[in-house]
């Protein structure tokens, strides 16, 4: 169940893909490093207050996205739109019509009843997943993106040169480059607060404990119990997202309890870290380079004219 129970297998393979028991040790931290921490975001109790977004912006001093220009998106109460360089928490709002039921399950999940069906309002606070196999970190050419001793992933702003490789590598569309200062930014899981023994600002501000912070192994156990409760209360569609160390990113440091398919929330259904295929990619590039060498050789093998 927990990543800590995973046997350490072939290191080279696991540095690119697959379960990884100790992500900080894999990054070179000594055995005395703190245990891996994370977020469990239980969307079934999210009330869409956006306190997490506000607390994040306040604590991290995030600038307004477009110098004072606030836009209404028309997407329910979501006027943030997506995670980005200046939005490290994003609350999604989804309005759905679902069949009426004699037993509506947990009442707070069904907000209004209409003719022939009920309106269900899904709210979810999205965040950087702090992947076990983080593509952004793997592809960063400068070493600006690093793994912390807590197993999280952060950008060092004084090193980043704005190449934007991480932007295209992230399978969740989380990290982005700021237009004004030219560097990539994303959630740090409040690295400064962690160093000071505090929980991240979003988790601190969340009034319903939809955002829970703690050691990742403990959170995974809490989540499996909570999942069973929600499913038993009449929501068999509930599922965990990012909690499985056997998934395509080796499990997320920030995982979720969802009440519908991931893509409904704007999440990729089954992301796989791109570096899984990196050895095969270099082999194909090697073949292509050999074709080039052969082509030049053939062109010059003919008569000297």
């Amino acid at each position, binding site marked *: 169940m927990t990543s800590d129970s995973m046997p350490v297998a072939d290191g080279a393979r696991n540095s690119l893909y697959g379960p990884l028991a100790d992500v900080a040790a894999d990054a070179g931290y000594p055995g005395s490093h703190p245990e891996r921490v994370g977020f469990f975001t239980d969307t079934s109790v999210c009330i869409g207050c956006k306190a997490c977004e506000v607390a994040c912006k306040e604590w991290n001093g995030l600038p307004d996205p477009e110098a004072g220009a606030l836009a209404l998106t028309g*997407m329910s109460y979501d006027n943030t*739109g997506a995670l*980005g360089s200046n939005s490290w928490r994003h609350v999604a709002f989804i309005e759905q019509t679902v069949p009426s039921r004699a037993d509506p399950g947990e009442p707070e999940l069904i907000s209004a009843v209409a003719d022939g069906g009920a309106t269900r309002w899904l709210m979810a606070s999205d965040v950087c997943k702090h992947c076990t196999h983080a*593509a952004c970190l*793997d*592809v*960063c*050419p*400068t*070493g600006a993106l690093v793994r912390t001793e807590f197993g999280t992933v952060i950008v060092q702003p004084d*090193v*980043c*040169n*704005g*190449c*934007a*490789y991480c*932007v*295209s*590598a992230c*399978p969740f*569309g989380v990290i*982005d480059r700021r237009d004004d*200062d*030219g560097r*990539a930014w994303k959630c740090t899981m409040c690295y400064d607060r962690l160093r000071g023994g505090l929980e991240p600002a979003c988790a601190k501000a969340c009034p319903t404990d939809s955002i829970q912070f703690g050691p990742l192994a403990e959170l995974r156990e809490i989540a499996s119990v909570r999942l069973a409760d929600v499913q038993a209360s009449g929501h068999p569609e509930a*599922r*965990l997202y990012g909690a*499985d160390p056997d998934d*395509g990113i080796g499990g997320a440091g920030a995982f979720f309890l969802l009440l519908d*398919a991931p*893509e*409904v929330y*704007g999440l*990729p*259904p*089954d992301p*796989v870290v*791109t*570096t899984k*295929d*990196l050895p095969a*990619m270099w082999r*194909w*590039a*090697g*073949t*292509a*380079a*050999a*074709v*080039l*060498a052969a*082509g*030049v050789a*053939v*062109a*010059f093998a*003919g008569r*000297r004219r």
Partner: protein
Amino acid sequence: MTEQPQVPPADFQSYYGRPILKVSRWKEPHLPAYLFLGELSGALAMVGAAADVTGRPSLARAARLGAAAGAFAGGAFLTAELGRPERFLNMLRVAKPTSPMSMGSWILAAHSGLVSASAASELTGRLASLGSLAGAGSALTGPLLAAYPGVLLANTAVPAWHEAYRQLPLLFTGGAMTAAGAAGLAVSALSRDRPEFAAAGRLAFIGAAVESLAGYGLETMPGLAGEPYRTGPGGRMLTAARYLTMGGGVAALAGRRSRTAAAVSAALLTGGGLCAKFAVLRAGKASAADPKYVVASQRVARPGSQGA
């Protein structure tokens, strides 16, 4: 080119149709120009070394000067692409095998040094043996410089790039041959030693065949994987690239006898190579902007996974 069956997932859903991925920040003309100039420099370095060994001094001289010019112009576009260009040297702060851009930066740095030395020796006429040695070295960095961008683009979450990891390197090394061959043909149209440049015409023809084949491979990737290369801005550019490159390849065969044919071939092949690079960037952006490509590739790959 027959139309592939389009099979969007039956239960395709999204969050207000918004992209799941961030669309690449790499822009036009910087990225396509860098890809073109990098592969040009890589192949010209090989042409320079081969011409040197086989006794074609005029061709060797032109190729070495062109390789240096291509490397520096490409490097300029690459630097201008950065959010913080003044921190370009941070690229050489670490050497990371998991980052194709890190590997590429080291390849470009080594290649630029070697082609500069060989071009400087060519221009000044001094230290000819060292210049030849540097030129020979650049014949080893050249194919790496031409091929690595295929890995650079494929090692992302962008569906049209990642799923094309077999085709993209071949598109770029084929393009390297056409670009270098076209440069040779262009010079031969103005040169007095035209027989020396026959090899450039042959290289252009071989390259046009390889590049067209790789482009065909992109277009025929099944279902949604190849759609951004068949339709939309990427598809239109790749179609243009195909006609230009194939036309240029045919013209290259006549370039030995006619200066006009050599010039026409050079123009067509250069245009085709550039269009192919623009096509790849535009196809990648199209596939990142529409969530259906992300959902389709992941639902097909592992049906019944955690999300289903």
